[in-house]
C-alpha cells in the first residue's frame, strides 16, 4: 500500500510534481503513466525517500520510507537500469545489496535465476545491454521478496520475450497479494499489464481509475469523412452543414474530417442534402493509446514538431505546428470542452482543458514558453480545484461506465 497526500516537489523554479494524491493498493498492478518529464520518476524517488517532498507526504505501509522498519524487505525498486557500478559483476552487485539488507547470499543466485542472468553473473555489468541491465535491476528489486514493488520503465530495452516475461511477472507478483507500481510512457503496454491506472501530466494528477473505466471513458468513437481532393469549397460546405447539425468537426492532417456526435447515416444524409460528394465515410474507434495521448496532450513538455526547413516557409495555420506529432492533434486540447462526456467530471485538471496552442502558434518547436510558463501556471490555476479532484474519479466512475463500450476492452 502506497499512499501519497498532496505530494509536491519543486526544483528551484520548476515544479516537478504538484499536489499529487493517490493510493496504490495491494493485489493489483497499478500503472503510472505520463509523458516524458511529467514527474513519474520524481514521484518514484519521493516514494523511496530519495528526494524529500517540498510539501505533502508519501507513505509505504503507513510509514515514510526512511522510517520503515526493514525497508529493503518491504519495498523493492527498479529505478534506473543503469544505477549500477559498471565495474562490478552482476553477482557482486546483488551480493552487496543482499548483505546490506540482511538477506542470505544464496538468495542472490535465486534471483539471478529468476531473471535469467546466471550465465553472465560473473561478468562486469558495464558490458550489459540495456535489456540485461533491466533484468539486473529487476533482480535487485526482487532480492528482498518485498510486499511493495516499484518499477520505473521496466520494459525499456527489453526484447519481445523479455517484455512478455515482465508483463507476466508483474501480474504474478500482484496476484500474490503484493503492491506493484509500474511507471511507463507506453499506454499500449500498460493496457495489457495494469489493472489500475494513475495518469499524470506536468506533475499533476490527470486520472486515477481502473483500466476498464479508462477505456470506456476515453475511447471516443468518431467518423472519418473525406471529400474530393482539390475541392476545398465542398469540404467547407460539409463542415458548415455538420456543425449546424450539432456535430464536432476536426480537420485531420491528410485533409479528411473527423466527426464526432453524429451517427454515420446522418452524416451521409447531411452530405447528400448539402450536395457534397464523399470519397470516404468510415467508422473509427480511437485506441486507448490515442485516448491517453489526447488526455496528456496539454501536458506534454517535450513536443516534436514537423521539420519546418529552417523557417523558410510559414506554418499554414496556428494549429499546424502543434499537430506535427499526432494526426489528431489540432483542436485536440480543446476536446474535453467540446465533446460531451469523454472524461468523467473532475478527472481532468481544469488547467488542461484550455488549449495551450494559440499563443504558442509560432513558438519555437521545443516549446520554451510552455516550459517557462509551467512553474507559474500550476500554482496559479490549480488551487481552485485540485484538492477536490483526486477524490472525484472513483465517485464519478460508475456513473457513465456503461455509456461507451469499446472493442479495445479486454
Amino acid at each position: 500500500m502506497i499512499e501519497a497526500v498532496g505530494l509536491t516537489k519543486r526544483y528551484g523554479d520548476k515544479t516537478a510534481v504538484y499536489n499529487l494524491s493517490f493510493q496504490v493498493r495491494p493485489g493489483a498492478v497499478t500503472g503510472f503513466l505520463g509523458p516524458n518529464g511529467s514527474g513519474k520518476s520524481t514521484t518514484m524517488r519521493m516514494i523511496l525517500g530519495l528526494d524529500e517532498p517540498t510539501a505533502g507526504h508519501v507513505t509505504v505501509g503507513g510509514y515514510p520510507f526512511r522510517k520503515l522498519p526493514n525497508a529493503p524487505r518491504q519495498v523493492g525498486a527498479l529505478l534506473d537500469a543503469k544505477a549500477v557500478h559498471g565495474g562490478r559483476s552482476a553477482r557482486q552487485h546483488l551480493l552487496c545489496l543482499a548483505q546490506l539488507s540482511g538477506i542470505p547470499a544464496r538468495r542472490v543466485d535465486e534471483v539471478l535465476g529468476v531473471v535469467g542472468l546466471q550465465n553472465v553473473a560473473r561478468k562486469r555489468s558495464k558490458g550489459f545491454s540495456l535489456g540485461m541491465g533491466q533484468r539486473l535491476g529487476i533482480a535487485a528489486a526482487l532480492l528482498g521478496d518485498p510486499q511493495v514493488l516499484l518499477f520505473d520503465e521496466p520494459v525499456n530495452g527489453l526484447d519481445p520475450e523479455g517484455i512478455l516475461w515482465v508483463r507476466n511477472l508483474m501480474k504474478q507478483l500482484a496476484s500474490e497479494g503484493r503492491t506493484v507500481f509500474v511507471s511507463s510512457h507506453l499506454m499500449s503496454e500498460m493496457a495489457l499489464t495494469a489493472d489500475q491506472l494513475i495518469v499524470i501530466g506536468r506533475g499533476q494528477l490527470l486520472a486515477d481509475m481502473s483500466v476498464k473505466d479508462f477505456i470506456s471513458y476515453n475511447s471516443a468513437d468518431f467518423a472519418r469523412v473525406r471529400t474530393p481532393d482539390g475541392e476545398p469549397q465542398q469540404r467547407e460546405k460539409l463542415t458548415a452543414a455538420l456543425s449546424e447539425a450539432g456535430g464536432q468537426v476536426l480537420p485531420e492532417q491528410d485533409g479528411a474530417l473527423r466527426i464526432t456526435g453524429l451517427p454515420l447515416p446522418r452524416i451521409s444524409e447531411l452530405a447528400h442534402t448539402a450536395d457534397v460528394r464523399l470519397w470516404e465515410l468510415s467508422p473509427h474507434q480511437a485506441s486507448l493509446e490515442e485516448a491517453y495521448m489526447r488526455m496528456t496532450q496539454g501536458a506534454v513538455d517535450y513536443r516534436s514538431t514537423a521539420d519546418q526547413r529552417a523557417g523558410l516557409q510559414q506554418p499554414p495555420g496556428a494549429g499546424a505546428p502543434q499537430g506535427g506529432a499526432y494526426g489528431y492533434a489540432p483542436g485536440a486540447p480543446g476536446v474535453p470542452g467540446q465533446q460531451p462526456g469523454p472524461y468523467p467530471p473532475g478527472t481532468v485538471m481544469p488547467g488542461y482543458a484550455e488549449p495551450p496552442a494559440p499563443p504558442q502558434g509560432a513558438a519555437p518547436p521545443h516549446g520554451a514558453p510552455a516550459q517557462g510558463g509551467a512553474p507559474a501556471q500550476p500554482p496559479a490555476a490549480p488551487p481552485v480545484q485540485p484538492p477536490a479532484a483526486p477524490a472525484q474519479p472513483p465517485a464519478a466512475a460508475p456513473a457513465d461506465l456503461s455509456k461507451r463500450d469499446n472493442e479495445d476492452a479486454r
Partner: protein
Amino acid sequence: MTTPYQQQGQAPVPPQTPPQAPPQPPQAYAHQQPQQAPQHQAPHVPPGYVSPPPGAPAQPYAAVGTYTSPIPIQRTHLGNAIASEWTKIKSVRSTIWTLSVMAALVVGIGFLTSASTNDSDYTSAPTTLPGFFGALLGQLCVVTLGVLVISSEYGTGMIRTTFTASPARSRVLTAKALVFFTLAFVTTTLSLALVTFISSGMHSGPKVMDPSNDQLIGATLGVGLYVSLLGLLSLAVGSMLRHSAGAITTMLGVVLLPSILPAFLMMSPSLADLGVTMQKYSSPFALAALFQIDDSMGSGWSQLGVLGGITAGALVAAYVLLEKRDV
C-alpha cells in the same frame, strides 16, 4: 501539519506481537486497519501462502500488504553495511589499481632509494628514510581511492540503489568510512613496514643510526595513519561534492597548495607567519616530520592531530549533507 501516520501514534493500540519482535512499533497496525487491530494475530493471508511460523519476525509486517515473504526478516545493523561495503570495495578494479600502485610506489621507490644509498648516508638520518619518498607519491593514490569509494556511486547512480536498500544513509557512510580507512591504513602501514625492513636489512653498519622505537612507529603507523586520514578526508569531500573529478582536484589542492603557497606568502612580511604555519602543516612537511628526518621538525604528531581535526569536521559536514540532501 498532522499527517495520518503521526495521528496514529496516539491511537491506543496494544502491541500484539510476541516479544521476539521488539523492533516493530505498534503504530503500523493502527494506520492500516484500526478497527481490525485487536484481531490481528491471525492475519488473513491469501490461500496458497507460506504462512510464517507463529511469532516469527515476519508477522508484524503483515500490515504493509497481504503478501508475507517466507524468507525470515533480519533486523539490519552496521555489521550488514560493513559486509556490504567490503564486498563493494573489493569487487571494483579502482581499489586494486590505486592500492597496488600505492604499494608499488612506496615499496619500489623505497627499495631503489635504499639500494642507491650507502651506509654513510645514514649516520644522521634514520634507516626508515627511504619510505618517505614513496609515501609522498603514494598518498595521492589513497586520496584518489578515498574519493572514488563514494563518488563513483554518485557517478553511476548506484547510490540510489544503495539508499533504497538501506534508508539509513549515515550507516552506509559510516560503513564506507570504516572499511576504507581500515583497508587504506593496513596497506599503507604494511608497505611502509616492508620498506623499513628492507632498508634496515641493507644498511646495518656500526656507523648507521639505528631507528629508535619512536622513529619506527612514526615511519610506519604514524605515516600510515596520516595517509589514511587524508584518504578519509577525501571520502568526506567526495561525499559532499559527489563528483569524482571535482573531489580529486579539490583534494590535490588540499595536499599541494599548503606546500606551494607559503613561498608566495613569505614574500610579504605581514603574511609570513601564516606562510610558516601553512608550511608546517603541509602534507610533505608533516610526512617528513613523521619520518623524523630532522630533529627540528618535531615528531609530526601535532600535524597528525590537525589533519584528524579537519577530517572529523569534514565528516560531520558530510553526514549532515547526506541526511539532508536529495539523492
